[in-house]
């Protein structure tokens, strides 16, 4: 996306944070243009939340120079706070107040006039489909409702820069799409979005630029297209009845990656139905019977494997299991 603004929404150089011996952020550089969506992609524990907490003034960095919304974060945190809105991973709502009271509280803290407070609260209740629940205590809200109220509270002051820390984690697919739509509307309204996610698909859908964070370091940065080009494409896993057919198939398909224990082959493909059909036709013509077929599209694990040479924790077991099937 081209932008006419010269001052970036976020400019961070050599951002560092450690808790004791553990280096959570080990010198990362970030540059986010105004009016764009920046996606910070990474697994649990990679430092995404810490990055958001530092950029949103919640915690202090150990090192690095950071400018947010044109203000020096270390010298003028309150100017930064006046320009941002934050929706964290943990719902930042007051459960002993009603939904409407929560929004009015925010409006008061933004020092809006009485009439404007009412107007803004009602507007947001409507926008986030919370009108029926406006007078109910937030303690009785469902997870999805709390998330919507949380974001609505973030938007009360019309922030120009919005931080969303894993905005769709734990949401069902329908709520996730609704959240994406909201993000798109915010960007259309001129806001800058800094979001973190574990899902490549989400970054792909929303972000203009994506950075991949792994163990406190940025391992890649670019547009989603650039990122996807850098990772291996989709593949299928074929399982055979015995070592003999495995050998035959391996010879026929040009010796792809094989696993003799599980009698499987991992065959790269372009993910199309035509490609899959051609592969199966080829095996059929050679009278090689396939016991089982598993499709595999590129995901965050593949990005990680490609960029870092290792799976992220939790993904390893899953991927090995997949090959073993």
């Amino acid at each position, binding site marked *: 996306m081209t932008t006419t603004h010269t001052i970036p929404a976020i400019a961070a150089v050599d951002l560092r944070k450690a*808790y004791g011996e553990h280096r959570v952020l080990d010198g990362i550089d970030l540059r986010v243009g105004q009016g764009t969506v920046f996606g910070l992609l990474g697994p649990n524990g990679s430092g995404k939340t*810490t990055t958001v907490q530092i950029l*949103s*003034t*919640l*915690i*202090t960095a150990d090192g690095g120079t950071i400018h947010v919304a044109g203000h020096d974060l270390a010298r003028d945190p*309150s*100017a930064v*706070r*006046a320009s*941002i809105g*934050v929706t*964290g991973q*943990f*719902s*930042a*709502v*007051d*459960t*002993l*107040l009603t939904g409407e*009271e929560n929004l009015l*509280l925010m409006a*008061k*803290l*933004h*020092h809006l006039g009485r009439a404007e407070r009412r107007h803004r609260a009602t507007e947001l209740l409507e926008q986030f489909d919370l009108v029926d629940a406006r007078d109910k*205590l937030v303690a009785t809200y469902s997870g999805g409702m709390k998330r919507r109220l949380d974001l609505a*509270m*973030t938007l009360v*002051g019309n922030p120009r820069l919005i931080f969303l820390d894993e905005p769709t984690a734990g949401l069902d697919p329908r709520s996730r799409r609704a959240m994406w739509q909201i993000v798109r509307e915010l960007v259309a309204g001129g806001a800058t979005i800094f979001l973190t996610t574990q899902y490549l698909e989400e970054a792909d859908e929303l972000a203009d630029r994506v950075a991949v964070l792994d163990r406190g370091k940025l391992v890649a940065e670019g547009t989603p297209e650039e990122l996807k080009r850098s990772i291996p494409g989709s593949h299928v896993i074929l399982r055979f009845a015995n070592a003999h057919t495995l050998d035959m198939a391996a010879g026929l398909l040009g010796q792809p990656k094989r696993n003799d224990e599980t009698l499987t082959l991992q065959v790269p493909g372009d993910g199309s139905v035509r490609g899959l059909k051609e592969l199966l036709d080829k095996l059929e013509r050679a009278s090689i019977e396939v016991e089982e077929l598993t499709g595999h599209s590129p995901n965050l694990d593949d990005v990680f494997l490609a960029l870092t040479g290792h799976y992220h924790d939790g993904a390893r077991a899953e991927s090995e299991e997949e090959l073993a099937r």
Partner: protein
Amino acid sequence: MTTLTHAVSDSLTMLQRNLKHMLRNPSVTILTIGMPILFLLMFVYVFGDTLGNGLGGPTGGRDEYIEFVTPGIIMMAVAAVTQGTALSVAMDMSEGVIARFRTMAIARVSVLTGHVIGAIFQTILAVAAVFGVAVLIGFHANADAAGWLALAGLIVLLALALTWLAVALGLVSGSADTASTLLVPLMFLPLLGSGFVPTESMPSGLRWFAENQPFTPIINTIRGLLLGRDVGNDSILAVAWCLGIALASYLWAKRLYNRDPSPR
């Protein structure tokens, strides 16, 4: 100037939030007001007759003891409210909404001042309730207008000091359980001072502690003002202790709140 007006209006907004919390979860408030009243009734009706005779006053017995113990119970009522305050601060800090407040351009300390002002309201309510019950069971105040004014001032100052201490302890505790435990000594200090029996009646080591701990001059001042006696040196000590505790606790609490929240 705008910074100051914002600090005031933000604190009032936070106060409103805390008052709503109190109204929706009144059990803590009721408990903190009810407990000192229970102590008052117990000490007057169970121990009062015997203890009153031991005071060596002109009338002796229960009537004598009501006059003596009411100031101690008032002190206890102020301390009891702080327990609820520490609890609600500790609980509040575990709520996600505090993280939101920290990233907003509001007067930082307003989250805490909201708690403090709310607690002072509660203290006034609690002290008024204790005093009301004391009068009903036979307490006679003998203060003039200046005495009442001084008394009100001292109670508010005392509440300010102990509440800031409670806020700091609530912040440092990290959990609601720890917070309420940390405040228990505050409830017992009136017992180990001039609250329930004269310090002269205690064994020497304990007597030294009782006479030198901060609550003793405060209780003596409350007692003197209520009964219209000369408060002299005690009142200076009482005010000095309150100001000292208030200032140190305020600075401590502010520092605790401004440090980075622990990672979760």
